[in-house]
């Protein structure tokens, strides 16, 4: 009898997953938690599509000669890999999945401010995705994910318009998600939950939302102009009409550089949560970490020119952009140092989410430091458009964002499903991903520094050894990515019951049952203390 009661408390029969059944209850849901799962399914789909293109790229580069695919096919492969990974996995990844699920829970609200808008944003995302999938299936697109004009606007024979329209549409889903988060965080915090009691994940989500709101529309209008140039002869970037292709680059990077921070800021928020929980220690310098997110978002808007050092730019402008780019290192370093200081005298344990968090910190440091290389004018001229740049941004986007995303998925999986993932398998896959990642991308730093250019399907023989390492690493990485897909799905049915707070952690999301009820909290929460007040003697299970 008591055992049954126990189970009921640990795993409530009545929760957001069981409140309704049937496909309609999912496709018409206004529950932020269900919408998060819709996004989870969508972006997982896109991740594996983008991963497939990456696999073919790495296979082609196994040998110096272009033997697996033709040059034109290769151009399409890296373009579609970039477009799908950036716009359909990395940018929506953490905000739309973890953010959607967690923002209302963390601020103690019943839902986001605009639930219908939230559902609409998933549909907008999906429609944009359909356009891009159409572009992929109708022969692909070969402009590179950057769509540089005039190639994209005049010369490319591939289906540019469909992809551009798809990204234009998807942009609005980002905007609506950001709008929803900003309004929710401003107006719907639980009683007692002041700004400086908010979890750091909320701070970084807020900063990310600012970029969504202010950056995305600029990309949207820029891509709309490219589409108009292709479809209606509007020569806005065409030199023949006095247009300037460089203006496209300025406008594109005005969004797409901040977009890097869209990808990495939420990841930093996740890591702050993980590091605190698994070292049982208050985050060192909470306010500095919180404001560093805002600082990164603001500075992120002022550095776009560093993508254009060799594109033709006044040397004074280049100097200023270089200088400002160095500035971004300060708030980024604040975060890394503060995470490290949080570990100090903490009671550290190494569950899977913590393994990912540690992986993130290490890889982010490498990615960030090499970012300073490419922000330096002289060095950048040497490594522009080489594999050095490719390795640099993959350390940030894959080593950083994907690691944090997976860490976050594991950490909040018990909250999302009510069940624990298998710890042994999860630790193994985290290790495989870390090894595979470094083996894939570290050789690319060397290749780039030796002068191997990006975006070519063949290369001189002397680069082959490092390319073989890289391809071998990619195959290990692929195994690491497939494993969580399998065991997480398995755990939804067979995983051990998690209980409301398995780690045990502090945030409001852990004060409700796992999985939470549709309205999130049986009793509306009231916050009476600072965040991250851990009791060191209580340690996570496992």
């Amino acid at each position, binding site marked *: 009898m008591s055992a049954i009661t126990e189970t009921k408390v640990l795993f409530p029969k009545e929760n957001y997953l069981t409140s309704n059944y049937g496909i309609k209850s999912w496709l018409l849901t206004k529950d932020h938690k269900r919408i998060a799962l819709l996004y989870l399914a969508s972006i997982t789909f896109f991740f594996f599509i983008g991963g497939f293109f990456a696999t073919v790229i790495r296979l082609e580069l196994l040998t110096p000669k272009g033997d697996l695919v033709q040059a034109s096919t290769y151009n399409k492969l890296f373009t579609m890999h970039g477009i799908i990974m950036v716009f359909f996995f990395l940018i929506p990844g953490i905000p739309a999945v973890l953010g959607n699920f967690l923002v*209302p829970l963390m601020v103690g*609200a*019943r*839902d*986001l*401010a*605009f*639930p219908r808008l939230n559902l609409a944003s998933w549909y907008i995302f999906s429609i944009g995705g359909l356009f891009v999938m159409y572009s992929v299936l109708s022969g692909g697109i070969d402009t590179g994910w950057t769509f540089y004009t005039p190639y994209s606007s005049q010369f490319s024979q591939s289906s540019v318009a469909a992809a551009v329209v798809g990204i234009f549409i998807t942009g609005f889903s980002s*905007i609506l998600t*950001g*709008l*929803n988060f*900003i*309004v*929710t965080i*401003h*107006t*719907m915090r639980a009683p007692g939950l002041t700004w400086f009691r908010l979890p750091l994940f909320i701070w970084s989500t807020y900063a990310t939302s600012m970029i969504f*709101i*202010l*950056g*995305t*529309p*600029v990309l*949207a*209008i*820029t891509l709309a*102009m490219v589409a*108009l140039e292709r479809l*209606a*002869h*509007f*020569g*806005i970037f065409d030199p*023949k*009409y*006095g*247009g*300037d292709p460089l*203006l496209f680059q300025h*406008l594109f990077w005005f969004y797409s550089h901040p977009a890097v921070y869209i990808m990495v800021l939420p990841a930093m928020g996740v890591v702050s949560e993980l590091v605190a929980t698994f070292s049982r220690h208050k985050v060192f310098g909470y306010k500095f970490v919180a404001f560093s997110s805002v600082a990164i978002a603001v500075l992120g808007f002022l550095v776009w020119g560093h993508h254009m050092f060799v594109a033709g730019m006044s040397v004074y402008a280049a100097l200023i952009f270089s200088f400002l780019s160095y500035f971004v290192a300060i708030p980024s370093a604040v975060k890394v140092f503060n995470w490290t200081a949080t570990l100090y005298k903490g009671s550290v344990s190494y569950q899977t989410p913590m393994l990912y968090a540690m992986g993130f910190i290490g890889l982010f440091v490498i990615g960030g430091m090499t970012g300073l290389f490419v922000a330096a004018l002289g060095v950048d001229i040497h490594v522009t458009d080489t594999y050095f740049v490719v390795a640099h941004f993959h350390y940030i986007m894959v080593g950083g964002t994907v690691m944090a995303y997976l860490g976050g998925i594991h950490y909040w999986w018990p909250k999302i499903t009510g069940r624990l993932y298998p710890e042994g398998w999860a630790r193994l896959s985290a290790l495989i991903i870390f090894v595979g990642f470094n083996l894939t991308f570290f050789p690319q730093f060397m290749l780039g520094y030796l002068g191997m250019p990006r975006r070519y399907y063949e290369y001189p023989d002397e680069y082959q050894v490092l390319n073989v390492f890289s391809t071998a690493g990619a195959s290990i990485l692929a195994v690491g990515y497939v494993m969580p897909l399998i065991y997480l799905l398995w755990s939804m049915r067979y995983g051990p019951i998690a209980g409301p707070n398995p780690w045990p952690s502090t945030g409001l999301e852990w004060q409700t049952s796992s999985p939470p009820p549709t*309205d999130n909290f049986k009793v*509306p929460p009231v916050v009476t203390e600072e965040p991250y007040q851990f009791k060191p003697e209580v340690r996570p299970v496992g």
Partner: protein
Amino acid sequence: MAETNTVIGAHHASFAHQFDDPEQQRQAGALGMWVFLATEVLFFGGLFTAYTIYRLANPEVFAVASNELDLTLGFINTLVLICSSFTMATAVYNAQHGNRKWLIFFLCATVVLGMVFLGIKAVEYAQKFEHHLVPGAHFTIEGTDPNKAQMFFSLYFAMTGLHALHMIIGAGMMIVLIAMAWRNRFSPEYHTPVELGGLYWHFVDIIWIFLFPLLYLLGRSTIGH
């Protein structure tokens, strides 16, 4: 919680479950619209940036090209939009004071003025089409570099077209508001949608207040006709 909802819900059919009270809902709605308008500023901002850069690069060509625009129609349209902002503001005032009839009247007046604007805009577009001033193979213009003048008209159509699209969406919003007012959904306590519609409408008007001098007036005196 459920009881609270029913009690408040009895007064306000449009009170949503995720909010604690109507005041919170009102604040969320207003903040949401302001954030959306911030997005819109940047959305138009890309075109304004392109316009500024190209105007600075080719001021004489742009001045000649802008002389091809119909100043009279543009000026009438500016007046029409300013009037529509007035009727919109009056509609919000009447919503605040619960005058349902006048609310509906002024919302209808706003839609009508919006339609007049779009009608005049359509006449202008038709004229440009007849005068071969639409970008493309048939573009012709006297007295200046036709290629660079075409850039002016690309920007003209992109900017006014995007603005007109916003007007159409705004008119749709007004029609929804009229239907809601018709069904007696608003009261002095609850009229957030009217206020949000007003914010949006004024924003679209302000965009035009920038477009009109940039496209129609700038450089006109230096050419003289």
